[in-house]
């Protein structure tokens, strides 16, 4: 049972990691918590759902994920263009980002409510049998797929940020945007890049969450809270910290639910966050401690 719970926890943590990184990446470059990410995840879950359902013959899941990520990029850039770009241009206070991103998330959820009601829609069955056995552990195929897709995406992302020129430029902008300009880094390009990556992450996590929990308007917002908590525990803006915290949160949640039942799980996640804020307010990574929204 222990291994079973551990595996489920890791798989859950992997999705939280995608959300947390989507959060952390925008925070590290632009220094604000992008709550619109939750709304984006919900839209992407719907897009993935209808793509999977209407396109004939039914596309394999990776095609759906790819298509949804592209839609995620487009929406993310659109959002930046109509909302955040003007805040940047006017050099408005950070609170403006916070308020508008929260508002956008609420608007998106409300619109989805109007069109699709609150009833969850179930993704078509992806696998003919839902589980397989390894030794005496019964493993869900869905969870395995989610784990693999998430880990692959996280590895690609870490490679992009740690090893490529664009990634180095993104890190430079996150540390010191003014001096980055003197290196010849075009900050607008880096911002577009950041929102594109956040869009991809929203797209992939939307499809994966939709597969796991069904598609409903609040999906993104409820999950985003987990991702946000993970990125706070990890140290806002730190990708490595956010990923570590997300896995930790996923595993704790699984064990807690097994022992205490699912009703008290949301309480537990916030308690973990509060504990971290008391004991280690700078987060696991210990960077970017001061600016939290």
């Amino acid at each position: 049972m222990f291994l079973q719970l551990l595996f489920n926890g890791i798989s859950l943590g992997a999705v939280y990691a995608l959300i947390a990184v989507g959060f952390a990446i925008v925070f590290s470059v632009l220094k604000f918590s992008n709550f619109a990410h939750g709304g984006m995840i919900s839209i992407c879950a719907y897009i993935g759902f209808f793509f999977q359902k209407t396109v004939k013959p039914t596309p394999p899941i990776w095609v759906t994920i790819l298509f949804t990520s592209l839609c995620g990029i487009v929406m993310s850039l659109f959002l930046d263009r109509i909302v955040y770009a003007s805040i940047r241009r006017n050099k408005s206070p950070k609170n403006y980002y916070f308020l508008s991103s929260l508002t956008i998330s609420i608007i998106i959820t409300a619109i989805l409510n109007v069109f699709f009601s609150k009833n969850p829609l179930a993704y078509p069955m992806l696998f003919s049998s839902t589980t397989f056995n390894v030794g005496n552990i019964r493993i869900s195929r869905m969870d395995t797929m989610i784990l693999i897709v998430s880990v692959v995406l996280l590895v690609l992302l870490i490679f992009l940020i740690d090893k490529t020129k664009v990634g180095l430029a993104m890190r430079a902008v996150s540390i010191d945007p003014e001096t980055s300009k003197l290196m010849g880094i075009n900050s607008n390009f880096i911002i577009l890049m950041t929102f594109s990556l956040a869009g991809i992450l929203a797209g992939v996590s939307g499809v994966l969450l939709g597969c796991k929990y069904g598609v409903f308007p609040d999906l993104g917002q409820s999950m985003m809270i987990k991702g946000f908590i993970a990125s706070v525990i990890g140290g806002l803006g730190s990708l490595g910290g956010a990923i570590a915290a997300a896995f930790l949160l996923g595993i704790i949640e699984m064990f807690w639910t097994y022992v205490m039942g699912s009703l008290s799980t949301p309480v537990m996640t916030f308690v973990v966050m509060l504990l971290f804020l008391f004991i280690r307010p700078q987060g696991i990574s210990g960077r970017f401690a001061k600016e939290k929204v």
Partner: protein
Amino acid sequence: MSLLEIRGLKVSYGYVEALHGIDMDIEEGRVTALIGSNGAGKSTTIKAISGMIRHSGSITFSGKELPSSSNKVVKAGIIQIPEGRRVFAGLSVEENLKLGAYSLDGKTIKEDLERQYELFPRLRERSSQDAGTLSGGEQQMLVIARGLMAHPKILMLDEPSLGLAPIVVNEVFRIIESIKGAGTTVLLVEQNANTSLKISDYAYVLENGHIVKEGTGSSLLSDPAIAAAYLGKRE
């Protein structure tokens, strides 16, 4: 024709005009100094050239109008080394150097790194260390090396001696002379008038946003008014 021609350069911060239309010529292969006291507008001048702040008036580089966005200025080969040793703390020394070469295509990056490590052996010893943990002097060397990574046609140094120990200041000026020796044009902005006039071919004196005097480094050094105002000597 000089390499960089500045005509009628004006910069305002809100309603306050900081530069009231200055003219400067920066000759190729020379060290040009811009001296003046605190708040005279020296850093403003450099930032205007870099495209970091908006300006009016004309700046021509090799006979062409200089673009106004900072990334294009860097691409053209005009590199600013900012005041106050702005290293990227949290990135390694080597990553800092690589960022200096961001505007290049990356083909020469290995040789360029090697060249900077030869010029600044301390940086080689610390290449994988967090740049934020270096001493003040080492950080100043790092930002200069980072600037050189871009193959600058003009290197603009903003107060490179500020806040450094005297022995490190001498080292910095020795490096500036060797940069000039390698054929790079230098624009040096300094409060330390004495030393900068000694190593510069030509100098401008900035006061309250106006150029009040210009001449060769040695002629300004022997000017009694300059001596009284900037060199701490009595007439």
